[in-house]
Every structure is written in structure tokens, then in C-alpha cells.
């Protein structure tokens, strides 16, 4: 409907705004508006010049130095660098409270409209890149002065060439290659998305202090123009300029760029990467391009005879040489076909495998593969040695490989398919639903011979979400897994649909008998051959259910006549058991209409029958009673008990061992003389809840609808109450039903109205276990100690200490007079002492059976609030630090002699946190002062260190290695320091960042065996690092967004108590990680080897693994 407008008559204001409202229908009017200045003025007065626009503008004003042309909303912190292309600032973005790098391009560089359009397009493409080694683009646009800008992740680092120059000579090649591999993989990632960099050079790659490279300026590079007379090269930077505008960098440009070719492709980036690799490993700039060779075939500008340093460092020198030469071939057809292929070859170099640039024979490759895949060996050893705990987890997690995939790869390895095994390891663990695109790309790159995306894939895996797929169905309700785990049957308003796993695509739709309702109760027969559905009929005179059975071995077809029952039948042997209209318990066949009654002594009005999967138990419900029968050796049904306490109509399912059954809210033990309702420590809610069996007999899934979560309950022992072990959230509606697949790998849920989801219930972090009531404590816990007597926690401002067992069950509360207890320690020797520190007051000592007493301080010391206390391991001294920066040391009898006190504040700014740690032999006490100061206190007094030069901020925690030879410090500026006790300088310091911001470390601990170092930060991460090398093994996101205040190892078990800030106190349990991993691996190994239950699988898997070894 085009509105008719006479062009020479101006339309009314209303008509104009109506046209803006519906532009598609108002072409004529808009054409008038384009031409008529009067109308434009009218529109602008209202649209642009009003107070709304004024308000918007004033909100975005920042206090920037005058004269700078900057986008609104950003505040400049400092100029980082200025170059031919533009200027880069470190800036603060008020709306998000984050630090960014703000790059404003020189107006000359993008002066024409089409160039600016292209800039927008390029930025649009580049901002879609999300890769850990590519600097993220947050925002882009133009400044008020019309200069294009973009805001990027701020990376504090060095250009990659300077980074390499700063590396020590010894053994650096591997480090260089690892960094390069990441760079090449990042470029490959972008290339695969159709984005070329075109201006790769060392100054476009920053390496942060952790050695993590970041590629900058994707999409910002211009095509390099043809060499022309007005080009002049700046001898310093190698940058070409044309009338001052940046064009390109000859030193790093490919021959085809120099020729001015327009059809650039990935191989241009391959060339530049080759030169960067050359620069990184030789420390020398690439030789200048010999112009005469441009366009001709040749060996490229990289000399085949490598410089000396190159040879000295490279054991695989020949191979490395070939890789660089292949990447830098003058004719791009001679180069690697893609940046991914280059990255893959560098990966081979790193693993000591033959490179593609020089393919050796197959036998050698196979032999090297086995040599160089320690992961596979680790898994085999683990199988052999019955899961030697944490080491396996660490290795597998460090490699980032999915648990089940390892087993699949092992099988291929056994079959001699080494290449296949590697592919499996690196591709299969990508979840096909969440990573369909990624997987396809990865497969493609494998098919083209590139294994380049491996590391990228590993990182993708780390981002894995627990909900792996979801699909919307109208009113999804009942669900059941096919026993082979390949299909889920779901009843919905559309009838029954069979969904494929894991895609959740509809494979079949089944319709029920006419005149019946929808959303039937649907189940697979455990033998997998049939599916049956129970449609409830409520219209008088009939009531009960009509049941239909389908044979699903091929196309689903009804396999017998529909039959009536009360409630839903239950599988029983090869058939179904149900209550027939005569109220008898009957058994029927799946394929025939035959029916026979069971000799069960009936109660009046029985309406529901439930048989356990093996047929050992049968529950009959009717009226207000539930009857339990057990099958005797001679196949007779014997009544065991009856109970009026629960109602069978909302059955969740039987536990794996058939001794428990979930009914509505409760889990009930049925194998005793009477039903026993089991206790849930944190009960499932009351609003439409339910319980469903978990993967093993000790685990249950509970649905809590008031906070839209599915909880996983488990218990530590037969007698312990169930506790929440895990939580799946992100659910939008009320959960209806849950069911886990036979291998326990996936959990399916339905929501009303409308969503079916697939979950990985054991996704990360699987080993996090709440410490009983403490996990929901009403208070902030600042400190805790774990010893053989259990756990003692300082409950912040509650004014008490909590003593509990290690399961979290409270033993007692000890009231203390403090206001804010921030430190606690217990010493157990001939007598038991508890010491605690009140941040608002005194150091206190609680002796067994006595009231808390104030520990006397040295009268000369300032009376700062007490902060932290630690007993010397032999109990012969007690150290405490206060808020004024004083260290106090008491000796027995603690209460009778004032402390020896030391002022460590040193006139510096006093910080509220201090740390103190005793060496295992008690001879050295490490203590932190203000602003990065660290002291050693020994029998001879206090020894200062030069720590402030190395640590920027307050040391927040300290931990000694069990061997006493190493002390670790963590601080608020993301630095972890490795110290040899009593040394003035750290052995080394590493900086850890999250994104571009240094982590704020608050806590540190070392594992019992001393191998793993754990560091907790202010946003809920617990990093696991190799305590020797500092290599990051895993990052456990334990308490998202919360402070990890202390990490306390359990002296008796392989686990760590994580004391978070706001009411988080959990175990990070490595034994549990092991168990889960072991179970999953066992299952897969078993599945590969045929049928069998878990214990049998373990033996078989072990035997099988033995057969694998030479």
C-alpha cells in the first residue's frame, strides 16, 4: 500500500513520521524527504535536536584531555604507541568497567567513503573471531571527527620478536615453536573463516608474560599496493609509505603482495608466518627480498644454509629448515596450502614426528607415533595399575582429552590404525551438537592432511557447556532412552516423537489409538525391541489406560492389539506386567495378544504395578497402600511389607541395584523389612519436584523447580544422608522428567512447556563436593583448617568457630568473642589448642574445655586488628600477623608471655591482607609485609628479601613444598613466585592473567605429594600448576565470581578444601575426579569389547590393555 503523495506538496508531520515507521510502504514519501530540506528540518528538529539526544550524549562524555578526537564512553589512560597507521591508547570503558586498547586510525589511511565502508566490513568480520590467541574486538565505529576506531582486548605484552630475544639460550627452541604454533593456529582459525590477515609481522603479535601470544589487527591491514615510484621505504621499520599513508611492510610482505596481485589467499599469510618463524628461531630479521627473484621460481629468500644459531639450537634443524623453506617458497604453489597445514607441521616438529615437508616411510611414522604419544601410554598404564589416581587425571586433563575418547583411540591403536587413533583423539571429543561447525571444519582439515586445529580444538573443549543440545517440542513430558542410547522417546502434545541422540532430530512420530489423550507415558522395553505407550482414558465409563506396543527393530509398527490396564504397565521379563480391568496382575507378550495372570496375593483395589528391571521386586499400589513383593527362589511372590506412606503414581525409577526407588519427593529403600525413606540433606523442593535414578546406585537426580535446576545427589556411605553434588542450571521452564542414558554419559530432561535437553551431567567440574551444611553457610568463611579430627572453619562475623567432620556434619560450635574471625588454626599434640584472629580485635587462644583467651601482644607493638594465625608444625610456636603489618610470635605457655613482635610494615602502606606460612620442619617462617614485601623469620631473626622488585603487590598467601626446599608466593597482581627459602630473590616469577587482566591471587596450596601447586583467585578459579615447571595443568572454576580465600589440603586424602568468599566452602576432590573418569573409561572400553557389567569390565579392560603392551 503505497501512500499517494504529491511531490511538490510537503506532507504533514504525522505523515512523515508514519513513513519513518513503515519505510517499506512509503517509498514516495521518503523520496520526497530525501529531496526536501524543509521536511528534513522538521524531522531533525524532533529526531535529532531534542533532549533525548542531549541526555544520551551527556551520559557518554568522559574526562579526556582536550583536543583528542575520541569516541564517546572511553577514557584515555595513556598512549601506548603511535605509528604510521594510527595511534593506540590504553583506555577505560566506563559502561563495562574494563580496560581496552583503543586504536584510532589516521584519517588519511581510510579517507574515502568506500575505504571506510571496507573498514566497517573488515571489522565486522574480525569481530566475529573468537579465539584465545586473537585479540578480541569489542567495539568499533568512528570518532566524532570521523576517524575510524576500534576497541580491543588490552594485552600487556611484548612483540613476539622482542619476546624471543628475551628468552634464555638454553632449550628455548621448544618454547619458540610452541608460541609459533599458537600464532599459526590462530591465523589458521581466522583464515578458515575467510579472513586473511595480510599484514602479519612481529609487531602484530604480542606475547604476554605467560608466553601466550595474541595476534592483533585482523581486518585492519590494507591490500598492499603495487610497488610504485612514490613508494619509499623507511629503513628503520621497513614500512612502506606513500605520501605518509601506511601501505604495507616490505620486510614481511609476500612476493605476490609486492607484485600487487589482487587475488591474495591464505598462502600470503603462510609466507609471512614463515618469516616470523624464521625471525623467532634465528633471532635475525629475514634477509631482504631480492627484487630480481620476484615472480620467478626459486627457493625463496630464506637461505637454505641456515644461520649458526639456528643450527645450534635445533636438534630437528633439518626438519625446521624445511618447514621454513616450504612456508616461504616464492611460488605460492610450493608453500603449505594453508596456515593450518603449517601449524600442523610445526606440531609434528614439536612431537618429534616426521614433517610433511619431508615425508618419511610409514613404518618410521608409526614407530614415532607410539613413542610420542605418552597419553595413550598413560591410559594403558592406568588400566593396568587399577587407576593410580590423580596422576592420570592430571595427564588426561592437561592434554584436555575427553574421557571416553581415549578409550576409542586405544581401540584404534590396538587395531594398528595409528592415524585414525590420532584423529579420534583430536576430533571425536568435540561434541557434534555444540561444535557441529567446528567439527566439520576440523574433519575437513584432517582430510586435507592438516592436524593444525588440534590445540584450538582442545581449547574449544574447555569451553564445553554442560547442556549439549536442546530442542523445542510442544508440551514435552515423559521420556525414555532406547537401551542402545541412540534414541529418546518423548511424549508431547504432538504425540510420541523419537529423537536421535545427540542431534535431537525427529526420527519418527507415532500416533496413539483414536480417542485417547496426548502425552502418554512412554517407555522402551529394556530389551530394546519394543516401545510401548500408555494413554490415560478418563472419560466415563472407562478409566485407566489404553496401551499400544510398537516393534521398533525397524520402522515402528504396532505389534499387537491395544489393551487396557489400570495405570501404566511395567516391563517384566520378555513382556509387560500390568493390572488388568479385572484388577488382576497380569503379564502380556509384546508381539501377541496372549495374557496370563500372576499368582500374586492381591489387595483390594490394586491399580498400579511396578516391577524392578530384573523382576526381583514388585510394588503394587492401590487405595492408600503400597505393597512390596519379592520373588523367591521358586518363582513365587512373597509379600515383604506394606505401607501407607507413599503413593506409587509418581514413580521416578529404581536405583541400579534395585534396592531403592524414587517416588515423588522421596527415595525409598525397599529391600528391608519395611520401606525406609532416605534423608536428603538439602531436599528437593516442593513445587512439582521429582527424583530420578542416577548412574550408579548411590546417586540420584533431583528436580528443583523453584530455582530451575536439576540437582545431583550422592552420598558418601550407606548411612550418610544424600547431599547435593552437582547442579545443572539454565533451565527455563518446569522440569517434567529426567532420564540418563545407559552409559550414564548423557542425561535427558523435558520441560513443560516445550523443551527437551541433553546434558553432560559429569561435565566440569565433576569433583567439586559441598562441605555439608557449610556449602550453604549463612556467612562468609575466611579461613579453615583440615586435620585428622576434621574441619574447623572461621565463620566470619558469626562470632563462632565451627568444628565438623570432613563430610561437613557439625560436631560443635565454639563461640568466640571476635567480630570478624579471619584466621583459624588448630594444633593437636599433648594438648589441643585452637588459635584464631579477629580482624576487628585480638588474637585468641581456645584451649580444650576453656573459654577463649586473648593472646598477649608485645606492649610496644601497634594494636592492629588480628589477621591470621598459624601454629608451627610441632606446636612450639604460634605466629600471627595483624593489620598494621606486625608479626607476633608466641611460645608456650602461649597465654603467659607476651609475643615477640616484629614491625614488618616498614613504613610502607599497610595492607589489610598478610600471609604467613611455616616450613614443614618449622625452622623457617615465611611472612608477607606490605606491597610485595616478603620476609623469612628463622631462629636468628628476620631476613628481608628483595621481593618488592619482583612482586608488584601484596603477597596474599604463601605455601611450602612438603620437602621444605620451595616456598610459593601468590599476590594480587597475578604473580606466582617460586622461592628457595632464605633467598633474597625468587627463583622465578610467573604472571597469570585472565583475559588481559592479571589474576588477583588470594590463596595457594601444594598437594600432599608436592607435585601440584594450586592457586585460587578472586573470581573463583583454582589453577592447578605443575609445582616444578609452572605449567598450567587445569583450571577448575570452583566458585564463579567469588573469592577463593584459602586452599587447604586434606592431609589424609587427595583433595583440597576451597574456602571461597561468600558462602562457598567445597572440596575439590581428585579422588572423585578419578572415579568418574575411571567409570566412564571403563564403560567405553567395555562397550568396545562387548557386553558386561562394570566389575567384569574392569578385569576385561585390564586384560585387554595388557595384551596391547609389547
Amino acid at each position: 500500500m503505497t501512500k499517494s503523495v504529491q511531490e511538490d506538496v510537503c506532507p504533514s508531520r504525522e505523515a512523515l513520521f508514519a513513513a519513518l515507521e513503515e519505510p517499506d510502504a512509503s517509498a514516495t514519501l521518503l523520496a520526497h524527504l530525501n529531496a526536501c530540506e524543509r521536511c528534513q528540518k522538521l524531522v531533525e528538529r524532533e529526531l535529532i535536536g531534542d533532549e533525548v539526544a542531549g541526555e544520551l550524549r551527556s551520559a557518554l562524555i568522559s574526562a579526556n584531555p582536550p583536543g583528542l578526537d575520541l569516541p564517546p564512553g572511553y577514557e584515555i589512560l595513556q598512549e601506548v604507541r603511535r605509528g604510521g597507521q594510527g595511534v593506540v591508547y590504553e583506555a577505560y570503558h566506563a559502561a563495562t568497567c574494563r580496560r581496552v586498547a583503543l586504536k584510532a586510525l589516521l584519517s588519511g589511511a581510510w579517507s574515502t567513503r568506500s575505504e571506510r565502508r571496507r573498514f566497517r566490513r573488515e571489522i565486522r568480520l574480525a569481530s566475529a573471531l573468537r579465539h584465545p590467541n586473537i585479540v578480541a574486538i569489542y567495539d568499533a565505529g568512528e570518532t566524532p571527527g570521523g576517524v575510524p576506531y576500534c576497541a580491543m582486548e588490552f594485552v600487556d605484552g611484548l612483540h613476539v620478536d622482542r619476546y624471543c630475544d628475551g628468552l634464555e639460550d638454553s632449550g628455548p627452541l621448544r618454547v619458540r615453536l610452541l608460541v609459533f604454533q599458537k600464532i599459526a593456529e590462530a591465523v589458521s582459525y581466522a583464515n578458515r573463516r575467510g579472513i586473511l590477515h595480510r599484514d602479519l609481522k612481529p609487531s602484530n603479535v604480542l606475547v604476554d608474560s605467560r608466553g601466550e601470544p595474541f595476534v592483533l589487527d585482523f581486518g585492519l591491514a590494507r591490500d598492499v599496493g603495487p610497488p610504485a615510484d612514490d613508494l619509499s621505504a623507511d629503513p628503520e621499520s621497513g614500512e612502506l609509505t606513500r605520501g605518509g599513508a601506511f601501505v604495507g611492510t616490505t620486510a614481511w610482505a609476500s612476493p605476490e603482495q609486492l607484485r600487487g596481485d589482487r587475488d591474495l589467499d591464505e598462502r600470503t599469510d603462510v609466507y609471512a608466518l614463515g618469516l616470523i618463524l624464521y625471525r623467532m628461531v634465528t633471532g635475525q630479521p629475514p634477509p631482504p627480498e631480492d627484487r630480481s627473484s620476484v615472480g620467478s621460481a626459486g627457493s625463496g629468500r630464506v637461505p637454505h644454509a641456515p644461520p649458526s644459531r639456528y643450527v645450534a639450537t635445533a636438534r630437528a634443524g633439518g626438519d625446521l629448515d624445511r618447514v621454513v623453506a616450504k612456508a616461504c617458497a616464492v611460488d605460492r604453489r610450493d608453500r603449505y596450502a594453508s596456515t593450518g597445514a603449517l601449524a600442523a607441521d610445526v606440531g609434528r616438529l614439536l612431537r618429534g614426528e616426521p614433517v610433511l615437508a619431508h615425508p618419511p616411510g610409514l613404518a618410521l611414522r608409526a614407530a614415532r607415533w607410539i613413542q610420542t604419544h605418552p597419553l595413550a601410554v598413560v591410559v594403558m598404564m592406568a588400566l593396568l595399575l587399577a587407576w593410580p589416581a590423580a596422576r592420570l587425571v592430571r595427564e588426561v586433563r592437561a592434554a584436555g582429552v575427553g574421557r571416553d575418547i581415549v578409550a576409542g583411540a586405544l581401540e584404534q591403536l590396538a587395531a594398528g590404525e595409528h592415524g585414525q587413533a590420532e584423529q579420534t583423539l583430536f576430533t571425536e571429543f568435540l561434541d557434534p551438537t555444540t561444535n557441529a561447525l567446528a567439527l566439520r571444519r576440523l574433519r575437513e582439515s584432517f582430510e586435507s592432511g592438516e592436524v593444525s586445529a588440534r590445540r584450538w580444538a582442545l581449547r574449544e573443549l574447555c569451553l564445553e557447556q554442560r547442556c549439549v543440545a536442546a530442542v523445542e517440542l510442544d508440551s514435552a513430558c515423559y521420556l525414555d532412552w532406547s537401551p542402545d542410547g541412540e534414541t529418546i522417546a518423548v511424549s508431547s502434545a504432538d504425540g510420541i516423537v523419537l529423537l536421535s541422540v545427540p542431534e535431537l532430530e525427529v526420527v519418527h512420530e507415532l500416533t496413539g489409538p483414536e480417542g485417547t489423550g496426548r502425552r502418554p507415558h512412554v517407555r522402551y522395553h529394556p530389551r530394546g525391541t519394543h516401545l510401548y505407550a500408555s494413554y490415560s482414558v478418563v472419560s466415563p465409563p472407562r478409566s485407566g489406560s489404553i496401551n499400544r506396543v510398537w516393534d521398533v527393530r525397524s520402522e515402528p509398527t504396532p505389534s499387537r492389539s491395544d489393551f487396557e490396564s489400570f495405570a501404566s504397565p511395567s516391563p517384566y521379563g520378555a513382556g509387560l506386567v500390568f493390572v488388568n480391568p479385572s484388577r488382576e496382575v497380569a503379564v502380556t507378550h509384546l508381539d501377541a495378544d496372549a495374557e496370563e495372570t500372576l499368582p500374586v496375593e492381591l489387595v483390594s483395589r490394586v491399580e498400579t504395578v511396578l516391577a524392578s528391571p530384573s523382576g526381583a521386586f514388585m510394588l503394587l499400589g492401590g487405595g492408600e497402600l503400597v505393597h512390596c513383593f519379592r520373588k523367591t527362589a521358586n518363582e513365587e511372590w512373597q509379600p515383604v511389607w506394606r505401607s501407607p506412606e507413599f503413593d506409587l503414581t509418581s514413580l521416578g525409577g529404581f536405583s541400579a541395584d534395585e534396592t531403592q526407588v524414587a517416588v515423588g519427593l522421596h527415595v525409598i529403600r525397599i529391600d528391608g523389612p519395611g520401606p525406609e525413606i532416605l534423608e536428603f540433606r538439602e531436599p528437593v523442593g516442593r513445587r512439582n519436584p521429582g527424583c530420578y535414578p542416577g548412574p550408579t546406585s548411590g546417586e540420584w537426580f533431583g528436580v528443583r523447580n523453584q530455582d530451575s535446576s536439576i540437582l545431583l545427589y550422592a552420598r558418601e556411605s550407606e548411612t550418610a544422608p544424600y547431599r547435593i553434588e552437582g547442579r545443572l542450571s539454565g533451565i527455563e521452564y518446569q522440569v517434567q522428567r529426567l532420564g540418563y542414558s545407559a552409559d550414564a554419559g548423557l542425561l535427558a530432561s523435558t520441560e513443560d512447556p516445550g523443551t527437551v535437553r541433553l546434558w553432560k551431567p559429569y561435565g566440569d567440574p565433576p569433583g567439586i563436593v559441598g562441605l555439608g551444611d557449610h556449602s550453604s553457610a549463612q556467612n562468609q568463611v575466611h579461613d579453615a583448617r583440615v586435620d585428622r579430627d576434621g574441619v574447623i572453619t572461621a565463620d566470619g562475623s558469626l562470632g563462632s568457630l565451627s568444628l565438623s567432620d570432613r563430610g561437613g556434619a557439625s560436631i560443635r560450635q565454639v563461640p568466640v568473642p571476635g567480630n570478624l574471625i579471619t584466621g583459624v588454626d588448630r594444633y593437636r599434640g599433648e594438648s589441643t589448642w585452637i588459635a584464631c584472629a579477629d580482624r576487628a580485635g585480638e588474637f585468641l587462644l581456645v584451649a580444650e574445655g576453656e573459654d577463649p583467651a586473648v593472646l598477649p601482644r608485645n606492649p610496644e607493638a601497634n594494636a592492629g586488628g588480628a589477621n591470621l594465625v598459624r601454629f608451627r608444625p610441632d606446636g612450639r610456636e604460634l605466629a600471627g600477623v595483624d593489620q598494621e603489618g606486625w608479626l607476633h610470635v608466641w611460645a608456650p605457655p602461649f597465654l603467659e608471655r607476651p609475643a615477640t613482635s616484629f614491625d614488618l610494615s616498614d613504613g610502607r602502606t599497610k595492607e589489610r591482607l598478610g600471609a604467613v606460612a611455616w616450613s614443614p620442619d618449622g625452622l623457617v617462617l615465611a611472612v608477607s609485609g606490605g606491597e610485595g614485601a616478603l620476609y623469612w623469620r628463622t631462629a636468628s631473626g628476620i631476613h628481608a628479601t628483595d621481593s618488592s622488585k619482583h612482586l608488584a603487590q601484596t603477597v596474599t598467601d604463601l605455601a611450602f613444598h612438603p620437602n621444605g626446599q620451595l616456598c610459593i608466593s601468590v599476590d594480587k597482581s597475578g604473580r606466582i613466585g617460586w622461592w628457595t627459602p632464605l633467598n633474597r630473590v625468587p627463583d622465578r616469577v610467573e604472571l597469570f592473567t585472565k583475559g588481559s587482566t592479571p589474576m588477583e591471587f588470594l590463596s595457594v596450596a601444594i598437594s600432599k605429594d608436592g607435585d601440584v601447586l594450586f592457586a585460587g583467585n578472586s573470581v573463583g578459579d583454582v589453577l592447578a600448576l605443575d609445582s616444578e615447571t609452572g605449567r598450567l595443568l587445569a583450571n577448575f572454576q570452583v566458585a564463579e565470581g567469588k573469592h577463593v580465600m584459602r586452599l587447604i589440603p586434606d592431609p589424609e586424602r587427595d583433595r583440597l578444601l576451597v574456602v571461597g568468599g561468600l558462602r562457598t566452602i567445597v572440596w575439590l576432590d581428585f579422588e572423585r575426579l578419578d572415579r568418574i573418569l575411571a567409570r566412564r573409561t571403563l564403560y567405553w572400553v567395555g562397550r568396545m569389547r562387548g557386553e558386561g557389567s562394570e566389575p567384569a569390565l574392569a578385569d576385561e579392560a585390564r586384560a585387554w590393555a595388557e595384551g596391547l603392551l609389547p
Partner: protein
Amino acid sequence: MALWMLPSRVPGDPADDRSLSITTTALLEGLHGEDSEAWSMFEQRYRPIIAGVLRRMGIEPRELPDLAQDVLLSFVRDFRADKYDRDRGRLRGWIAAIARNRARDFHRRASRTVLRRGESAFEELSAAADVERLWDEECARHKVRTLVERLKRETGFQDTTFAAFELVQLQGRSAADAARELDLSISAVYVATHRCRKRLAELRPIVDAAFGEDGATG
């Protein structure tokens, strides 16, 4: 029936849909309860405002994220210890008081370490009422920023619709200028601007409701 994947959220994104659908009152409830997300939403909502207030009190931008975090943590500590009584005063007053103390501590420390930055600016703003006024102003600004960020995210910051809006509304360029810049007709610039403004007007009550009385400018 489309298979869909769950979108991954960008933590700290002020334009997060869910964070706007929860009122401050509900968030405070969440801080009492077990809801682990409540804290991050609370932080996301108030950290930039606190940072804005601290900025106006003379704190260097570099220090803002950490100091603002400290203020929030202090508040939550008080809150959980039931020291904060909503009936007695607004959230605004409570947090603003903490911010004022923190800024004062910070300046004291800074003056001891001879830096003395922003001291005079702070002295002028020492009265509680002044800080609350700052809070209101910063809160209003933050709400507008949240609106713009949300709009930017909805339209995509590369899209010409937002670009046109940004040029003429946020940067005050003329429509003709913007049209030339973006290679659009003038009327297309108007249409884009009109659309964005309409959407902003729709979003505004959502944001206002989310912030509740503590977001009120009065």
C-alpha cells in the same frame, strides 16, 4: 523444528538480557539465598556506577575496577551480616557511604605515598549528600550507557542502523553527513535513527524497573 544451541553469555556484559529482567530487590534476595549468579549480576549492575562515583571523587581510572570491587564486597559483607536495613535507607546511601570511606582511605594512602592525586577534588565532595548526588548522576548515566550497549548489541555494532544512530544521536553529526558517511539516503538515516529511538524508549522502562528506586534520579 530447529536444533539450537544455547548461546554463550559474555560475563559482565551490561546488555545481558537476564540481568535486566531482575530487579534490584530480587537481586538482594539472591544475595541472601544460594543463587550464585546474583552476585555477578549485582556486581555487573553496580560496579560501573560505583566506579563512576569513585572517578568523580578523584580516583584514577586505573584503580577503579579494583576499588569498586572492594566497595561492593564490603556492602555484601554488611548485607549478609544484616547490617543493612532497607527500610532505614536506600541501597544508594549505604553503598555511597562505603564508597566515600574507601575513597577517603585511598586518598589518605595516596597522600602518604606522596602521590596526592585528586585530593582537592575529593575534599569538595566529602559530604554524604554530595556523594549521593554523584550516585544519582552516575546511575542515570549508567542506565543510559546500559541502554545504548543493549541497543548496540541488538542491532550489532557494525550494522548501519546503529551506525547512523550513533553518528547523529551520540556524536551530533548532521544527518546529511551521516548519510554520506554510510552511503545511505538521508531518509534511511532518519528511519534508522527513528527505529533506534523507538527501541530505546521500549527498553528504558525495562532498565528503570531493573534498577528500581536505587536507580531513580530523584
